[in-house]
């Protein structure tokens, strides 16, 4: 029999807290290098100015630990739990929620979660959105992804016709980014989930955003090709950084895919602003 590894809930709470606090002020090198590359290739002055400000803001945030963006997001947490782990000392989900609660209160982050109808703020940014997956092994891997509302609002799940094919999917993604225009704070990262069911396509799209920015899909050459072609099309739209014009409307397109029903072609486009925050760690 495999041995069981015990992991106390206190460790999980601490890790979640630290990851969200770090994510809010420490922009990843993946985003920064993509922005720097874009700034070098932009021909529009205003576009270069906007990209330079993004880099300057990241430096200030890192030095002062002020959040990169006032929208410190809805707390999305991806957790992979090894099947040989035994969580001790309390409720696993509550341990994650407590980590989020502490990050947003002790870390001076904005509490952006409210009742959908009354709009009354919950006061501590909970509940977080927790996605758990059982995997082999005896570790817990956590990805903390604070997700801003402005870019989330420009996202959607649709059921395309199965006959749409790659070309139809590509056109749909480009059209979504075009319609969003300046609203989601371009340059954006476009997360795409193809296939599965309606909810699975959304989850694939969200998970695609957790990938280091610009890292192509490693498992399917059709998808890495789709990512490249779609990015090229998007950057011909002219929207540019902040919608001020230019060739940097998106920094990357990340696509994930899985099989679907013969009648369906679910596609979710989940847009992420340039403040693409994701931090991960393993216990």
């Amino acid at each position: 029999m495999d041995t069981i590894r015990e992991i106390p809930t206190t460790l999980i709470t601490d890790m979640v807290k630290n990851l969200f606090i770090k994510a809010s002020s420490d922009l990843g090198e993946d985003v920064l290098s993509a922005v720097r590359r874009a700034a070098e290739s932009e021909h529009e002055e205003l576009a270069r100015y906007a990209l330079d400000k993004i880099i300057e803001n990241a430096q200030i945030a890192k030095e002062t630990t002020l959040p990169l963006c006032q929208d410190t997001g809805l707390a999305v947490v991806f957790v992979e739990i090894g099947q040989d782990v035994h969580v001790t000392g309390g409720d696993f989900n509550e341990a994650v929620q407590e980590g989020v609660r502490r990050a947003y209160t002790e870390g001076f982050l904005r509490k952006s979660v409210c009742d959908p109808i009354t709009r009354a703020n919950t006061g501590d940014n909970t509940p977080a959105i927790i996605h758990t997956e059982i995997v082999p092994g005896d570790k817990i891997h956590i990805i903390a992804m604070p997700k801003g509302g402005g870019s989330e609002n420009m996202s959607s799940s649709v059921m395309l016709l199965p006959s749409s094919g790659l070309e139809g999917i590509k056109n749909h993604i480009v059209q979504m980014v075009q319609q969003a225009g300046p609203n989601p704070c371009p340059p954006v990262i476009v997360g795409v989930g193809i296939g599965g069911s309606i909810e699975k396509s959304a989850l694939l799209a969200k998970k695609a955003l957790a990938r280091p920015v610009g890292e192509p899909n490693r498992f399917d050459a059709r998808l890495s090709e789709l990512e490249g072609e779609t990015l090229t099309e998007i950057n011909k739209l002219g929207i540019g950084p902040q919608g001020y014009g230019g060739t940097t409307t998106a920094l990357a397109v990340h696509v994930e895919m899985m099989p679907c029903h013969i009648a369906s072609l679910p596609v979710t486009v989940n847009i992420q602003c340039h403040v693409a925050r994701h931090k991960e760690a393993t216990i």
Partner: protein
Amino acid sequence: MKNPITIHTPITKEICEALRTGDRVLLNGSIITGRDTAHKRLFNLLAEGKDFPIKIEGETIFYAAPTPPGPGRIIGSIGPTTSYRMDAFAPELMRAGLRGMIGKGKRSDEVKAAIMKYKAVYFGAMGGIAALMSSCITKAEVIAYEDLGPEAIMRLEIKDFPLIVINDTKGGDLYDDAVSRNTRVR
């Protein structure tokens, strides 16, 4: 790139009429914040013929909700939220005397028409550079709707707040200009 124009509040009709889409502006003086729920509340008061808890005439509103200030800070990080969610309320507020709006993203045709009719202005502030923009705030206090938490209406004193004119009194639109300029066959 032209140098930015320095402007002091209150923003007048004359200032609005002189501004053009694409002008970079450094705004100084005093502005208020307000976003989704605050707008709905103000709008409801207008509909009921009741007084606002704040003065709106000649005012400039920033669609924003900052992060809470850490120890020794005036304010946390601050930046614009997407403006279209305030479109349903903005024309009525302009009719009531609102002069300036600061946000990000496209406005509706109704808002653009109201900007021309009432001689107002819509400025874009850059989204996602909120740590940098925080340094332009010299004073901050909640003046209404404290129960809304981050969405409360605040008065901010600002210094050299960097903005760009998106929609002007002549019907100009920076976002439309940007796309047509960049998609023209070269």
